[in-house]
């Protein structure tokens, strides 16, 4: 390999050699400096609406921030949330002792906000998974199974208590799968208006 004259290689072989070299360096770089922030994928920390419901109920020291548009915030927001536009986020005064939980309408906005707040040194910043939508659908107006298996009893009574606490209403349905949400750690997808739908489809390809 060492003695090969570069001019003897075809263009494609040179490109292949470049790819090999760059990827080899990539491996060396990420193995030798495993903990540099730029090298690792920087995963945001999430809290579920269920955890959040307990935190608010137990009056834990949490600063809850709603990053959506003002009109949406005025229409509905998670209790105790305060409205901060994404553009004003770094100017807003947050208590460094309290943890911050944020949510927005768009995942990219949440991650952006999470990155900038952790970037300026806030130690404990979380994203509320699913935001106001999941709060509405899973805490305030959850669907729960009519017939509860013994395994799910604790979870169902926990949700019922929280729904009552926040003044919502439970709807009972003939399906167990409605409980999957609470163990899946995945935001439910908001498909309400035509506009959102078109946007979702466009994200695909």
């Amino acid at each position, binding site marked *: 390999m060492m003695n090969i004259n570069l001019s003897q290689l075809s263009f494609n072989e040179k490109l292949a050699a470049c790819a090999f070299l760059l990827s080899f360096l*990539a491996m060396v*770089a*990420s*193995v030798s400096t495993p903990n540099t922030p730029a*090298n690792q994928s920087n995963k945001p920390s999430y809290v579920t609406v269920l955890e959040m419901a307990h935190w608010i109920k137990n009056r834990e020291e949490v600063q809850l921030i709603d990053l959506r548009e003002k009109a949406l915030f005025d229409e509905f927001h998670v209790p105790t949330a305060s409205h901060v536009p994404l553009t004003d986020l770094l100017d807003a005064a947050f208590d460094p002792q309290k943890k911050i939980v944020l949510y927005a309408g768009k995942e990219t906005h949440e991650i952006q906000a999470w990155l900038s707040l952790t970037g300026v040194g806030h130690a404990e910043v979380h994203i509320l998974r699913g935001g106001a939508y999941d709060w509405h659908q899973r805490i305030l107006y959850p669907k729960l199974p009519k017939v509860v298996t013994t395994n799910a009893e604790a979870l169902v009574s926990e949700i019922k208590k929280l729904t009552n606490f926040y003044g919502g209403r439970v709807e009972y349905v003939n399906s167990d799968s409605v409980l999957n949400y609470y163990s899946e750690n995945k935001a439910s997808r908001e498909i309400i208006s035509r506009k959102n739908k078109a946007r979702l489809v466009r994200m695909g390809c």
Partner: protein
Amino acid sequence: MNGPLYSTGWIGEEASLIFALAIGIAFGFFLERAGLGSAKKLAAQFYGKDLTVFKMMFTAIITAMIGAFWLNYFGFLQLELVYLTPTHIAPQVIGGLVFGVGFIVGGYCPGTSCVASSTGSLDGLVNVFGMFVGILLFGELFPFLEAFYNSTSLGQITLVEYLGLPNGVLVFVLVLVALLGFWISELLEAKNNSTGAA
């Protein structure tokens, strides 16, 4: 569009469409120039005679992967903000099979059928027509397919997270796989084109 300028609200929907048009024209131009507007060339890969599509696709993948790794490493790109299509195992396996059958029967994949139509190819136009009929059918049948469409979800996951390896190691492994694949495909091409009567 799911580009960073649009998702983060730096440009509006109209401007994003202009970007999309420019990128789309460039994409189509290079596909056509690479010879992928020809159904013969595309179908030849299933007979092991011309693996241009495989080589081109894998080249694009490793080029983008190496670019994304180093841009992220030096802080020009935040990989967390890159939109990932969620993984749904069963629907994507079925989708891949349908895609493959369509590809070998029609001779085009969706992008290349548009490229072929733009050069005036009739079979390209028929493929594009079929694609829109398929989109319409899927859209209308979606309520019946929705449960399956959302089944076996792994969320927005990457191989790095799934295997728990450092980014760079996976980059290296995939580049090795690609280079090995290129080498084998050139051997295959040489073998099939020398023995084949064509």
